[in-house]
């Protein structure tokens, strides 16, 4: 895939990808953009070997999710993610309750919920992105829904 083709592919889908990462990062859009850039560079570097154009988006989301996990791992020894999220970030105020509720969900549940409800991915595609089984995704979604209802309800009260 040439650079122009790659940019063309990304241009149409970057907004949804960034929105997904912003929700995953609980509203830190600057961090989400950094992770998106890192993920897209990684994708570009391995795009020569990529064979299925129809799965391009799912592939990008998978790389983005892995970059997010790597970022969390590097953050963990010094600062907790909750502490990092205490820093005011651009655009966080409007969705404060949702971010707070999402932040209390385990990463995998949060990702599964976002991919399912926000991006409209099917369970099978989510399983590919998260590198897990379809049954596991169904469980994640079920647990995630219950947890989100509890946490979001609590945030609103």
């Amino acid at each position, binding site marked *: 895939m040439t650079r122009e083709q790659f940019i063309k592919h*990304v241009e149409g889908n970057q907004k949804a990808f960034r929105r997904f990462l*912003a*929700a995953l990062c609980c509203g830190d859009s600057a961090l989400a953009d950094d992770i998106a850039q890192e993920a897209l560079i990684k994708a570009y570097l391995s795009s020569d070997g990529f064979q299925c154009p129809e799965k391009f988006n799912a592939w990008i989301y998978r790389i983005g999710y892995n970059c997010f996990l790597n970022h969390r791992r590097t953050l963990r020894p010094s600062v907790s993610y909750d502490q990092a999220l205490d820093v005011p970030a651009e655009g966080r105020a409007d969705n404060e309750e949702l971010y707070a509720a999402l932040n209390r969900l385990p990463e995998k549940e949060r990702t599964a919920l976002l991919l399912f409800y926000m991006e409209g991915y099917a369970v099978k595609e989510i399983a590919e992105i998260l590198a897990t089984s379809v049954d596991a995704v169904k469980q994640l979604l079920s647990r995630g829904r219950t947890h989100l209802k509890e946490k979001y309800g609590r945030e609103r009260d």
Partner: protein
Amino acid sequence: MEENEIKELFARFEPEMAPDFEFMNRLEQNLASVELIRQRSAQLRARSRRVLLIATCAGFLVGVLTTLAVPQIAALLAALHLPFQPLLPWLTVAAFTLFSSLSAYDFMNSDYSLL
């Protein structure tokens, strides 16, 4: 909170993000830098292959020439009355070969190289 409410909640979700053109400009710059690094690495790999080839050729040539001169070297060393006489000419050939290979490698990597 019902299923529909969750769907609506995420449908309404619009985080404040940097403008698209800003993100795409940054991405294009990053990809251009990646491309530059890729090209530079490919050039360096090709150059290093040429340098290795030249150093090998130089070593081989000097090795052949010194091997041809083994009788003369042996006579010269015999006159010096050094120990290990049968081995010394071949050790000299090996030393010359190694030295010429390494010198050619260093020279080709230096600023004076035409590569």
